[in-house]
């Protein structure tokens, strides 16, 4: 019976990391599930669902040559995994404002209080060094639709953030 693991890899970005990791995993008999790579502040980051017959230390041994040669930090967790069960978002929230400490806490706190479950979140520090702008895009699900977030959005607008909420209507055809 195969086991699922979540493999998290962080390091200085350089060409060939995903290729190197996926090659040794494939050759070692480990299969990939869902994965998400992002370049955050110049750092390479990836989280990969990995499935195979062995233990976490077997998996670590397979990854180690690439991790060591490319100077990567590798972290492995055993996970319970379910594929083919993606919850669909019904609302997208876009936020921007002059950067300050606590924007994500304010936004996610107020929206969670209004019933939002976050399914996907990306944020960037944009603008310039002198005048940074924080930008967040959230896909989420809220039981009673986008209207349920209205009062939370008004509160966030008063905190100096520009917050737009747009329903996501998934077209199936």
């Amino acid at each position: 019976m195969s086991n699922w693991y979540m493999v998290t890899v962080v390091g200085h970005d350089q060409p060939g990391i995903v290729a190197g990791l996926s090659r040794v995993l494939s050759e070692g008999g480990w299969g990939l599930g869902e994965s998400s790579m992002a370049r955050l502040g110049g750092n390479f980051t990836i989280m990969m669902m990995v499935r195979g017959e062995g233990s976490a230390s077997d998996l670590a041994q397979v990854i180690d040559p690439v991790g060591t040669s490319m100077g990567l930090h590798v972290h492995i967790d055993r996970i319970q995994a379910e594929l083919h069960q993606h919850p669909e978002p019904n609302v997208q929230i876009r936020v921007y404002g002059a950067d300050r400490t606590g924007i994500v806490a304010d936004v996610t706190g107020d929206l969670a209080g209004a019933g939002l479950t976050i399914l996907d979140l990306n944020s960037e520090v944009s603008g310039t060094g002198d005048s940074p702008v924080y930008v967040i895009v959230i896909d989420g699900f809220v039981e009673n639709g986008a209207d349920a977030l209205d009062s939370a959005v008004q509160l966030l607008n008063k905190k100096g953030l520009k917050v737009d909420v747009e329903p996501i209507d998934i077209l199936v055809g």
Partner: protein
Amino acid sequence: MAVLEILTYPDTRLSDPALPVTDFNRSLVQLVVDLQETMLVGPGAVGIAAPQVGVAQRVAIVDVSPVLEGDRNRKPKSSRNGRLVLINPEIVERDGEVTGREGCLSVPDYTGNVLRADAIRVQASNELGESREYHCHGFESRAIQHEIDHLDGKLFLDRVMSPRELFRRKAYK
């Protein structure tokens, strides 16, 4: 009347361009009836195209009414032309670009963001061979483009955008 089997990717028939309809006969009328019935069985489907049931003819149906007539306060921006039977449809004019999330009866458990023309003018015949022209925008326009893609052997997977690309478009456009 029959609910037809929906082909799912990687069935190669989904990639075959469909042939124009030349005979507007009883079997065509029956195909339209069957497509309609099959579409209604699909979870929340607003369109269906003949290649999705293994019939390589340029026949599609679009009906966004169920989504637009939901009891939600915020409905997607869209024209409303009711049930459209689109035989040999041709888009003769496109205007604007907009991203939206799409899924597909033929691609279970995946949705993605796709860039489409916001407004289109489409010419088609109905099942009796009568020429029709529709001006559509928003959700209805998207549905028609999705179905015409099926007639050309394309899936929305051929057009899906990365979440980061969407992020940048939404944030900075």
